[in-house]
């Protein structure tokens, strides 16, 4: 009797997580020890400013790539070589908010060469080399309030874009914070960043200056729509305060369609305006392992009010977030954050509407296409709060719903909902491997969630965010795996491991090392003084540093430890740390030279040592720096292995 009541009560409970996971999920994500994952999954780090690399389907964290934030773990942004990477017009900015990623593409498919990342706060884009998994280039963007709709990419990596999330007065002007001032002074900009097809180098080719509104997400057209870029917008109300309410008043905001091929023609024909400005372009040289900064002083701007017929607006319900182009390039899916439907626009209809001038009016002189004229159809009652859509290449779309916390699968052709699964909890972006390309790999969809609450062992008030992996092979989506992430994951990319793993570098060739302070072998080590600057040319090899005894340093000296790792074997990094260093340590890869600046504040003997467990005698890989009071007569001397030598440097093999 009582047992029956319990059973009845249990069955009345809401669907639990356990119920959502079926029996064979574990075997589908099990990657046996020593085996490789099928996909590299690059995940944005959000407020961590970094990019993480996971293996799929195991969900194992493989690496965190430092991009916009300093990383004391390996000295990125702390060592002298990488400090220039984080320089901006507003000084050294060692952190950011990293939202979206784009893998380089050729013919609309991932080519495995580079990964691009945006910085939402101090407007920047970064390029990561997928041979070394290192950030090799960071470009600041002028006239941007916050680089959110970025770094979405064209099908042959002609351009990545940067659209401002915050309308601001351009040319760094100040302006009153009133709605009248907003309407008069505030602008939105879209930067078209050209990618050099050989080197990958980024440069701002031109900027399109739009009326003030907030650009949210973006996608390039592909196939038939190649040559176009689409951006979602919110706050076309042009509110400058309490946007929560004031930017949610209009029934429809816009999708901005930019014909970038036409814009490029205008730019090439010299029809743009050159504007004086300043922005940083930072590049890491693979030759000398050192970054340098260049300040660019000019940007080419295009005004759609003067140069006609390359920007159009399409009404889209309720502050759209996602603005996603399907693999055929024919359909554009808008996702109104506050809408109860998903509008799907057809590229053919958009071009026809433009040809027929089926406009309902204009917004600051930019034609607004009639909603119905551009519409393929609407997905009715899909869920609450659609955010972002990806595709499986089989005619299906997968849309994330933040408010109803679910992934919904629907058919592009007939706009019918096919399946839905809950996420835990409050999904933002989702990602199908290759889901933004012409040929999605399909197989999985990953949900990136904001709230984890009861999902893992509690860790105090500050909790991790998470990812959930679903199989999309069958008719029904199936939850396979749930794992925590670093920072806050926004968008992500995944590529077949086979497209990258063979090219992954193992070492740097020491003979190709052109670092100005490299020590080519232990015989090349020395210590030199120029005024109060002391340069230590140091080498690291299993299991000693050369020199490992240094005397004649004085309080207040700027000591630069230029550590060259002489190893030429895979996975033999050496670390370098010195007591009381107020910046970080170094982690030096085989064949590389890194520099740590150390300014001793007090006399004494400062031990230094290797921080990476490199070998059986790693613990012995240590030495001493003697620091004397300022003006001391202790001569500069250094050695390893000998006890009395001011000139020669011993070599102990």
């Amino acid at each position: 009797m009582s047992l029956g009541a319990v059973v009845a009560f249990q069955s009345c409970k809401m669907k639990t997580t356990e119920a959502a996971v079926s029996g064979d999920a574990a075997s589908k994500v099990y990657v046996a020890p020593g085996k490789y994952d099928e996909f590299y999954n690059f995940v944005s780090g959000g407020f961590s400013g970094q990019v993480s690399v996971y293996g799929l389907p195991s969900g194992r964290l493989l690496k965190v790539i430092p991009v916009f934030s300093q990383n004391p773990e390996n000295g990125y942004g702390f060592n002298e070589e990488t400090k220039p990477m984080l320089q901006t017009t507003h000084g050294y900015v060692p952190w950011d908010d990293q939202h979206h990623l784009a893998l380089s593409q050729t013919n609309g498919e991932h080519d495995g060469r580079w990964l691009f990342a945006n910085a939402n706060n101090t407007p920047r884009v970064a390029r990561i080399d997928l041979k070394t998994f290192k950030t090799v280039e960071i470009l600041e963007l002028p006239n941007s309030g916050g680089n959110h709709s970025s770094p979405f990419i064209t099908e042959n990596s002609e351009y990545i874009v940067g659209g401002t999330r915050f309308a601001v007065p351009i040319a760094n002007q100040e302006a009153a914070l009133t709605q009248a001032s907003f309407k008069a002074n505030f602008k939105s900009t879209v930067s078209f960043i050209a990618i050099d097809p050989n080197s990958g180098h980024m440069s701002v080719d031109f900027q399109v200056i739009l009326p003030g509104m907030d650009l949210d997400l973006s996608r390039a057209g592909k196939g038939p729509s190649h040559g176009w870029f689409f951006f979602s917008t919110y706050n076309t109300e042009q509110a400058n305060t309490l946007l929560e309410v004031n930017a949610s008043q209009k029934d429809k905001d816009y999708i901005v369609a930019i014909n970038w091929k036409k814009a490029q023609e205008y730019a090439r024909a010299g029809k743009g305006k050159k504007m004086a400005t300043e922005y940083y372009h930072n590049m890491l040289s693979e030759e000398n392992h050192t970054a340098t900064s260049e300040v660019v002083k000019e940007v080419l701007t295009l005004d759609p009010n003067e140069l006609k017929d390359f920007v159009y607006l399409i009404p889209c319900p309720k502050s759209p977030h996602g603005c996603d182009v399907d693999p055929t390039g024919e359909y554009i899916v808008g996702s109104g954050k506050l809408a109860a439907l998903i509008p799907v626009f057809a590229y053919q209809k958009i071009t026809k509407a433009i040809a027929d001038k089926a406009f309902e009016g204009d917004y600051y002189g930019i034609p607004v296409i009639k909603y119905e004229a551009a519409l393929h159809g609407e997905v009715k009652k899909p869920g609450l709060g659609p955010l972002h859509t990806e595709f499986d290449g089989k005619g299906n779309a997968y849309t994330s719903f933040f408010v109803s916390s679910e992934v919904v699968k629907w058919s592009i052709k007939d706009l019918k909902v096919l399946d839905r699964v809950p996420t835990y909890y409050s999904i933002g972006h989702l990602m199908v491997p290759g889901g933004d390309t012409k040929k999605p790999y399909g197989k999985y969809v990953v949900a990136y969630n904001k709230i984890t609450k009861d999902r893992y062992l509690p860790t105090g008030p500050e909790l991790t965010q998470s990812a959930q992996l679903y199989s999309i092979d069958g008719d029904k989506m199936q939850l396979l795996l749930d794992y925590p992430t670093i920072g806050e994951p926004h968008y992500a990319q995944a590529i077949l491991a086979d497209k990258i793993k063979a090219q992954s570098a193992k070492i740097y060739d020491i003979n190709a090392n052109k670092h100005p302070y490299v020590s080519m072998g232990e015989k090349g080590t020395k210590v030199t003084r120029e005024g109060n600057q002391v340069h230590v040319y140091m080498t690291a090899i299993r299991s000693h540093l050369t020199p490992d005894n240094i005397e004649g340093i004085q309080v207040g000296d700027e000591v630069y430890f230029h550590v060259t790792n002489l190893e030429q074997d895979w996975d033999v990094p050496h670390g370098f740390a010195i007591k009381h260093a107020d910046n970080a340590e170094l982690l030096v890869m085989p064949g590389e030279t890194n520099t740590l600046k150390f300014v001793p504040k007090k006399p004494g003997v400062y031990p230094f040592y290797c921080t990476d467990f490199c070998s059986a005698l790693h613990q012995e890989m240590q030495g001493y720096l003697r620091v004397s009071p300022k003006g001391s007569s202790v001569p500069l001397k250094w050695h390893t292995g000998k006890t009395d030598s001011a000139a020669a440097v011993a070599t102990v093999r």
Partner: protein
Amino acid sequence: MLMKCTAIIFLDRMKKLSVLGRISIFLVIGCVASLWFLPMWRIDLAAPQYPEGIFMEIWINDIKGNVDVINGLNHYIGMKTIHKEDFKEFIYIPIALMVFCGLGLLVLLLNRKVGYYIWALIFFAIAGVSMYNFWKWEYDYGHNLDPTAPIKVPGMAYQPPLIGYKKMLNFEALSQPDVGGWFFIAAGIIVVGVSFYEWKQAKKQLK
């Protein structure tokens, strides 16, 4: 007179190389010449930290493979570092083999069985001296260790096997002929086989 003449011709035929013998000279020279293009010997090493394996290739005039990696590891046990410049053999061996090939052509020109036998003996003299030399180097590297080496295992020497498998500390070593070495061995089999054949033929004709 006729008898004597026939006997001389017969005797001459008995001393002269067969067609097979003459062809074999080209084969042997070909096999030996391959050593300029193919490695002679190979030592493979495996350890838990080296799942991909490391190896060393010995050529008649060079050492290739992961020599730097091996040198890096060997400093723990105080083994001397291996440098191409230390081996005078890389000059002598190619000269000796070139002379050997030249002598082969001379044997062909003289066209005498006895020349072939001597040539075969020279082959084995070169092979024997080379193998002894190889063993001596291995012994030297394996035993003459730096007394201040970080890792000292009492009674432990690190001489790699001349041929075959051996376990040394965390490393497993496998030493064996490489492609060029197998060609050289083939050359050896040919000179022995053909010498035997020539000798049998001479005996048959004598009966």
